[in-house]
């Protein structure tokens, strides 16, 4: 029994990766990432003297250093903070874009029969696809982050592992949104709807970070309650982004460090949302007539 689950899991993961390899979007994504990394590696030319930046060259041009020397650690940190924030947004969106079709395609007429007629149960099947999608996203994120981290490290000698841990939070956000995309996929069988609603969720939840202000501006009580409830129920997408930057910075190098977050209020509620979405998706999937 255990062997069946494990074999089916790996078969599904393999299929997700093979499909990704065959899809133009993903190949293009890797190609673009590689070009970006290579350009970055070639362009950044830092002149480090005694742990400080004496001069920097970008695309062969000298960068003016205001006030003479800049501490290399701070420069690297600033770059890594900015890059992790960008990657949070881009990585999450790309991951959803690259995996949201997994359920709708599985549920296609003529395809679902092939999968469900195997002795693997429906819930393990769906979770295998989910695992495959998540692993694929992890590869994408890791590819970009580790390469950039290595290049920065080699060129500057500054090795900031916290930058890599930031990738963990990015994956956590992806896992949550992917769970939601799976739920929408099970219900609608539509890749486009899955992608759009997941992106919508991301923005909606970000806006609700300002729930106090929005609720205060609402004339009706129930409207205010709805905004608050929405905030607590939905993933904390904006705060996760902030948390990544704070993590990467290690608490230093920020002009205005944001107030410390209650981990339960951010990670706990977000994780719960993802877990509920995935559980609901599994429940619906296991009861569906095909």
């Amino acid at each position, binding site marked *: 029994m255990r062997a069946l689950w494990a*074999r089916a899991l790996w*078969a599904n993961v393999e299929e997700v990766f093979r499909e990704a390899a065959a899809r133009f979007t993903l190949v293009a994504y890797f190609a673009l990432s590689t070009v970006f990394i290579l350009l970055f590696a070639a362009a950044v030319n830092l002149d480090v003297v005694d742990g400080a930046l004496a001069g920097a060259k970008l695309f062969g041009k000298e960068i003016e250093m205001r006030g003479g020397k800049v501490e290399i650690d701070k420069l690297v940190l600033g770059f890594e903070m900015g890059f992790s924030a960008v990657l949070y947004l881009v990585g999450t969106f790309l991951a959803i874009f690259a995996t949201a079709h997994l359920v709708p395609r599985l549920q296609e007429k*003529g395809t679902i*029969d*092939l*999968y*469900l007629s*195997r*002795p693997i149960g429906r819930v393990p099947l769906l979770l295998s696809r989910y695992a495959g999608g998540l692993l694929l996203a992890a590869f994408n994120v890791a590819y970009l982050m580790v390469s950039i981290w290595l290049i920065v490290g080699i060129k500057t000698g500054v090795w900031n592992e916290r930058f890599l841990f930031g990738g963990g939070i990015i994956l956590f956000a992806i896992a949550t949104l992917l769970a939601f995309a799976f739920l929408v996929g099970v219900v609608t069988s539509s890749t486009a709807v899955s992608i759009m609603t997941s992106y919508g969720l991301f923005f909606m939840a970000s806006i609700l970070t300002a729930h106090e202000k929005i609720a205060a501006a609402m004339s009706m009580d129930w409207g205010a309650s709805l905004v608050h409830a929405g905030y607590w129920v939905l993933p904390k997408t904006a705060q996760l982004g902030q948390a990544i930057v704070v993590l990467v910075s290690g608490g230093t190098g920020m002009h205005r460090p944001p107030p410390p977050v209650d981990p339960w209020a951010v990670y706990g509620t977000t994780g719960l949302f993802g877990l509920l979405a995935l559980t609901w998706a599994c429940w619906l999937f296991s009861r569906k007539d*095909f």
Partner: protein
Amino acid sequence: MASALSVHALEKVFRNGFSRREIRALSGIDFEVAPGEVFGLLGPNGAGKTTTVKILLGLTFPTKGEARILGLSARSPESRRRTGYLPEGHRFPGYLTARQTLSIFGRMAGLSRGEVEQRIPALLSRVRLPEWADVKVKKFSKGMTQRLGLAAALIHKPEVLLLDEPTDGVDPVGRREIRDLLREEAARGTAILLNSHLLSEIELTCDRVTVLRKGSVAATGTIKDLTGASALGVSSQVRYRMVAYGMTPSLVGGIQQLDASIAQTNGHFELSVRDYAHLNQVIDRLRAEGAELRELTPLRSSLEDVFVDLVKTGDLDSPEVKPS
């Protein structure tokens, strides 16, 4: 003998979305298939064949009744461990090669990577695709896809095989090969359920048949039972091909007066009578009028005739649709 698969009082009502309409796809059907038997499910489009097979595989859930495979409820995934399925109009992921397809679906049936890799070459030869092992499935023709589907259904050496319109879109040679392959499988004890609206397929392949009409069993039996005239309570006639000399128009008219139907086609006659007594009555008349009988060959009522008889009692479109 314990049956390899059985359905009992199986009912299925589809409830479609918001329209609150009920579609009764199956209204209480029963049948059993024994190990080593090739069993045909025959019926026009919309009769409920695919629904029956899907329930047996746990793809669709029954409204009432029971479906079992190898003694296990169709709801349990374990019942599919020894079951192979070729779905109607299946689509394998186009980006996989034949080898990868068999490997992935074989492992989802619980085989190890080693086991699949060892079985794939022989299996691909068996379905005559050996040189296509490393070609992407999207390049395959309909017939090749169908044969690959058959290989995928067989990779884990199932004891029960369910095939939904397996020869659909396959050329005559391919059909024959599929028939032979099914026969081989049955010979080694596999129970086979074959869905088809093609009577000739069922007739050529199956030991026993159930004819479905609008979600109900119209008839069940061996091909012989069904084609032997009286078994069905269907008004049927016995038909003969007759060659005789000295048949005058008045004689033909006389035979028609005996309530037999006779028509001349390409130098021979086709004669339809009620039964043997009626046949002899016609021949007596023929001989008495001086005609000389040269040949009289019974035209077996083919399953197709029976089938048409069975289903023409109602209109052939979808089953009753009634608002709830």
